[in-house]
């Protein structure tokens, strides 16, 4: 049983990490706690679902559709909401409140359009193979999620280190003013980040919708909840931290179910988070990034 729980933990950790990647990117570069990330995640899932059902596209094309739609959403998010707030030199909590409003809009629009009940991907679209190794079972889809989380993290880290845009983003994250003075297209980069973070959320949405086989308007909310914990654990704005935090939370949850009892699972997870924050105020791997209220 221990082995199976170990696999369960890795699989769950992969899910959390995938969601947290986009979320942490928005905070790291834009300095915004994007409480609409759950809604964008949900948007990705619905986009792919409709692509499969209405347009009868194969799964890979559907994922591309999700990427396009959530990327566009990210673009709009920055253009219509974040940019005006930057121009007005808004206090840094203001964008977060705007994302709350946006989440409400997205959730209720989708609910109005598609209904509140759970939808699912048609069976033909699902990769359902299960691998079985001596009593341990993992589905091919779970493996893909974990692999994708690592791959995406790897790509992002590489880009940030090696490409010009990546270095510009890192400079931007350190100090927007200095970056502007250096001639970096600050606005353009902010917009790019928003697009990137949103489409990461969208991809996470599709994959996790396939994993749970449940697509419903509020599906992003519990993920957002956990996502916040993951990003804090790993350090806000830290890409590697999103993965490490995700796996940490996955293990904490699974093993508290296995050995403490499922009723106390969330108490253990959040209790750990609380304790870790008191001992290491910047998260397990965080930098000394401080922001005033």
């Amino acid at each position, binding site marked *: 049983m221990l082995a199976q729980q170990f696999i369960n933990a890795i699989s769950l950790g992969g899910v959390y990490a995938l969601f947290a990647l986009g979320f942490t990117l928005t905070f790291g570069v834009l300095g915004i706690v994007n409480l609409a990330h759950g809604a964008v995640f949900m948007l990705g899932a619905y986009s792919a679902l409709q692509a499969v059902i209405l347009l009868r596209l194969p799964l890979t094309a559907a994922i591309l559709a999700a990427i396009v739609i959530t990327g566009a959403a990210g673009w709009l998010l920055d253009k219509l909401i974040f940019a005006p707030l930057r121009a007005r030199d808004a206090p840094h909590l203001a964008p977060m409140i705007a994302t709350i409003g946006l989440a409400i809009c997205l959730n209720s629009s989708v609910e109005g359009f598609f*209904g509140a009940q759970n939808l699912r991907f048609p069976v033909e679209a699902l990769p359902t193979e299960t691998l079985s190794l001596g009593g341990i079972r993992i589905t091919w889809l779970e493996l893909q999620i974990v692999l994708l989380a690592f791959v995406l993290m790897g790509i992002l880290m590489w880009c940030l280190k090696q490409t010009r845009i990546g270095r510009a983003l890192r400079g931007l994250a350190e100090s927007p003013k200095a970056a502007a003075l250096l001639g970096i297209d600050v606005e353009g980069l902010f917009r790019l980040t928003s697009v990137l973070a949103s489409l990461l959320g969208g991809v996470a949405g599709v994959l996790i919708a396939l994993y749970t086989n449940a697509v419903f308007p509020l599906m992003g909310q519990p993920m957002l909840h956990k996502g916040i914990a993951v990003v804090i654990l790993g350090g806000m704005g830290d890409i590697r931290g999103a993965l490490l935090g995700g796996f940490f939370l996955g293990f904490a949850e699974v093993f508290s179910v296995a050995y403490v009892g499922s009723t106390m699972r969330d108490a253990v997870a959040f209790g750990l988070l609380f304790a870790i924050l008191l001992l290491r105020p910047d998260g397990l791997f965080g930098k000394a990034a401080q922001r005033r209220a």
Partner: protein
Amino acid sequence: MKLKQSILSAILGIGFLYGNVDAADIKIGIAAALTGNAAQYGLPIRKGFELAAGEINVRGGVNGNRLELIIEDEQGRKEEGINVFKKLIFQNKVMMLFGPTLSNSAQASDPVAQAAKTVVFGTSNTADGITSIGDYVFRNSVTERDILPITLKIAAQNTGLKKVAVIYGNDDIFTKSGYDNFKKALRDLKIPVATTETFAKGDVSFKPQLTNIRASNPDAVVLSALVAEGAPIMVQARQLGITLPFIGGNGMNSPRVFELAKGSSDNLWVGSPWSVESPAPENKRFIAAYLKAHGTMPDQFAAQAYDAMYIAAQALKTIKPTGKLEADRKALRDALPAMQWNGATGPFKFRQIVGRNGKPAGYDAVQTAIVMMTQANRYVIKN
């Protein structure tokens, strides 16, 4: 102020007179969750009410009076439920109310109706502690306390199970209440529990809990969940190689389980007062009418709402409206307990229960449970 008041009274008076010239519409309030997470239950409920009221009105209404439905969205939130109840009772001055959708909301809003001496008739509240609020509270949703023991007994007989594992949602009043009733029924039937696991709404993975269950070697898994979580639980259980039968509560009685748990939906036992497979002519008529009006198959929520409207209409037929709202509301409350009906959910009557303080309180449903097992995308009746 005095002038305004007298003008207002004049207008009201004229309106009252005018209103009384034609046959008076009977205003019936409906508080349902039409947006938000609970809308997936509230919307079929609304459709069931509308279907029934439409049929009744087409046939001449109640003693010639049309039923007028005043429908408000309580969003599945308790504060909104209270606000909506107050609006319907005091502003719209309805004769009686149906709803709210969730047991949680009912706990908060039914006392409002009780205090205002207006009948509140729940069609989807199955948790404890609702009809005990007072003698103006009615429901035709059979409680899990009544159904689960029967489900367990029939399932046990058919599968020969010796011990079970239990998994339930511990953060939702409906699933928690279901668990309490399962626990009691298991104890009464002397079935030992190998392990008890919990999950929370919105959980993505149930495999940690299911792995524990697998390791405890039960003969069946008792599941107190709504379809939204219940279906993924079944799917993930099959993925883990758990082929055991599942025994579900009220929440799992929904044709959506075939869709949501496709390929893994077999071998689920549920008990319910209503089954889409029940061959009773009233049920077949209801299903056909619902399909024609709404284009989808009805579920248990729609069926119970449909029957509830008919039960209320029957009671309304027996009273003579005096034009005084308070007296009429009381007359309705007095007429309702004696009603019996044979509708889509089968033969029905009320049973008064004892409240918290030992005095007689509200009215629960008395109906026989139909126990079914899922097989090849159908519910097969087993008792």
